[in-house]
């Protein structure tokens, strides 16, 4: 950070408001000047949002998207955390499994769509499977690297106090790896939110992703498209913020401080 003069209090409100205003103005006038009938102005988006809320369709879509993310991400966490911890704990196992994971990991979860449809048909389960595929590998990798990066000193201290290997894992390695695990979970949740939207655009007929593509396909209602996008942004932000608040818990906060 460079500036010697600390910004004043009012500036914390002034600058964000200014950019927001500039952004909205730019949007409004671009729409006005190009005289487009298709792309909505900010006011039309607000109206679209109101329409979605009134029709109650929005709540159903939000609940559908969140349910899929919760199940897919939850399953990935429940399966991925123990496996990741095991791989970190036994380097020999990691050495065997790692090449396979490295090959599967870069396959975009979206690319699994046709396979998901064979296994699960078009519907919830296919979408959940895709979210699982997107979230699983980041979680496993984060847990494994969390464990391997636990300073040897901590493990030694655990052994020194006479802990059994299981106790060392539960009382030393897991808490020491927890900050990295949480970081991995947060990244995985972000990916899950990205994947659910894509999956809903292709593989199911409800949810916010479907709302986006459906609003476009049935009558070019771009005001609804943008309103749905904003909802996706707002919910994604809420999910991320909620997860970040976990990082403030005392017993993991040490792992997240980056100021000297």
């Amino acid at each position, binding site marked *: 950070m460079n500036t010697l003069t600390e910004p004043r209090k009012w500036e914390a409100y002034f600058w964000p408001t200014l950019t927001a205003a500039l952004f909205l103005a730019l949007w409004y006038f671009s729409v006005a000047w190009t005289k487009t009938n298709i792309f909505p102005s900010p006011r039309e988006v607000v109206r679209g949002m109101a329409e979605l809320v009134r029709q109650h369709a929005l709540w159903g879509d939000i609940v559908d998207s969140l349910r899929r993310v919760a199940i897919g991400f939850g399953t990935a966490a429940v399966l991925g955390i123990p496996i990741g911890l095991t791989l970190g704990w036994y380097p020999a196992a990691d050495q065997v499994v790692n090449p396979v994971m490295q090959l599967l990991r870069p396959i975009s979860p979206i690319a699994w769509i046709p396979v998901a449809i064979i296994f699960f048909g078009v519907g919830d389960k296919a979408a959940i499977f895709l979210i699982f595929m997107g979230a699983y590998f980041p979680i496993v990798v984060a847990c494994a690297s969390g464990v391997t990066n636990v*300073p040897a*000193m901590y493990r030694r201290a655990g052994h*020194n106090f*006479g*802990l059994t290997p299981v106790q060392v894992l539960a009382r030393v390695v897991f808490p020491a790896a927890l900050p990295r695990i949480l970081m991995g979970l947060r990244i995985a949740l972000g990916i899950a939110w990205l994947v659910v939207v894509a999956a809903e655009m292709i593989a199911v007929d409800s949810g916010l992703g479907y709302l986006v593509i459906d609003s476009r396909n049935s009558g070019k209602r771009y005001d609804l498209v943008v309103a749905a996008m904003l909802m996706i942004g707002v919910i994604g932000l809420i999910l991320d913020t909620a997860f970040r608040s976990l990082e403030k818990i*005392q017993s993991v906060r*040490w*792992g997240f401080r980056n100021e000297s």
Partner: protein
Amino acid sequence: MTLIEPMEVAVKAKLCVEQVGMVFERDGKSTHVLENIDLEVGDGEFVCLLGPSGCGKTTLLNAMAGFLAPTSGTIRVDGEPVRRPDPRRIFVFQERGVFPWLTVEGNIEFGLFKLTRAERAARVAQYIRMVGLKGFEKSYPHDLSGGMKQRLEVARALAVNPDMLFLDEPFGALDSITRLIMRGELLRIWEAERKTIVFVTHDIDEAVQLADRVVVMSARPATIQQIVPIDIAHPRDISSARYLELRDGIFKQIGLAHRI
């Protein structure tokens, strides 16, 4: 210069190091770290291992604590060969060994899992008082100063009532004033509890101030050059003629003219 002959250990030997050698193999190159180390440490004795950086003092200490197996020779405690770390012999790292995810209380309690709740609470209270961390029971390590963390780690070690403490440059990361205070504290604790202490340092003054005997080690491969008994009663006057004589003797032994 008076060369001081190693004195016969009057008390019965607690720790016996016999003909210990250590060779590390890495990338096809073998490094001889320790050679022909013979050392006896008496019960309740305070011994300093003194030597230049990188000479292998820490390796020897790790072997004594059971974290490393010597390539040749044996290490015995109370006549039993050392095979693994044991809660009767606690290794104290620099203050980096405290667990950042536990409170002060939680850290001290760490090794006490075999005791009842009431015993644990009593033990924790006792050692918090002893190391002067009263009022910080619920604090996390990152809110403590370096000296406080160091005292916390010593308290965690003492709380399990070990026979021996291995201290690896415990005060190396502290500022010089705190370091002086901590030396006094350590001596106070040692006199109260009479643990056998093996203390690694590269600071000649520190060694002469603390130890009953100073073990001077050569550069790699480390051998014992000389064992200097410090025949000054505690509390030591660090400007006395005898103190300076002993200190200068070691300076010469290491090959440093005591002039700048």
